[in-house]
């Protein structure tokens, strides 16, 4: 039964990764990448590594997401036009 959940999560990972690379608006790419990190942290919790899960949720999905957002603001990519 666990295997099915894990497979679903892996499919999620792929969807998130491919979606992040395909999307042309950087904001969406970054949001999808954050959800990738979140899925990754769930996978680590399933793999019995709670340390990694906490760290990934705090660092990967939290702080590096914030860094990406500020960068997008600094490069004026939040205005809704494509890539600029």
């Amino acid at each position: 039964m666990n295997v099915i959940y894990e497979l679903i999560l892996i499919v999620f990972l792929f969807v998130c990764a491919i979606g992040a690379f395909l999307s042309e608006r950087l904001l969406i790419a970054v949001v999808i990448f954050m959800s990738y990190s979140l899925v990754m942290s769930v996978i680590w919790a399933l793999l019995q590594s709670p340390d990694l899960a906490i760290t990934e949720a705090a660092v990967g999905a939290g702080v590096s997401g914030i860094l990406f957002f500020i960068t997008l603001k600094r490069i004026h990519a939040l205005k809704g036009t494509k890539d600029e």
Partner: protein
Amino acid sequence: MKQFIVELINDRFMIAAVLLFGLGFMNLLLQKNLIKKIIGFNVMDSSIFLFLASQGYINGRIAPIITNGVFDAEVYINPIPSGLVLTGIVVSVSVTAFFLALTVRLYGIYKTVDFDEIMLLINKEAE
């Protein structure tokens, strides 16, 4: 055929890690947009960590936190990959920050985050 599928499902994490590694590597190489290059780098690193962490997992065992006085190595999973991945995550977030800082500066100079354009502009300046 059936056995092949069973093996595929059994090695699911490693296969997913390798494919994600390829995806991230390709994006780090090929994406023109610097932000997406950085996302590619992050995907690549976390896929390596997924590979490592999945190597440490053993079916039916629990996380190595000794709260109930059981010291038997047969009960807990392998703690080494977790430690290594913890180190790796911090390294990768540091590199990400550095990369983003470089991107911000380049945008300040050339007003674009397209890597190929930036390289062409730099080469033009050199001539």
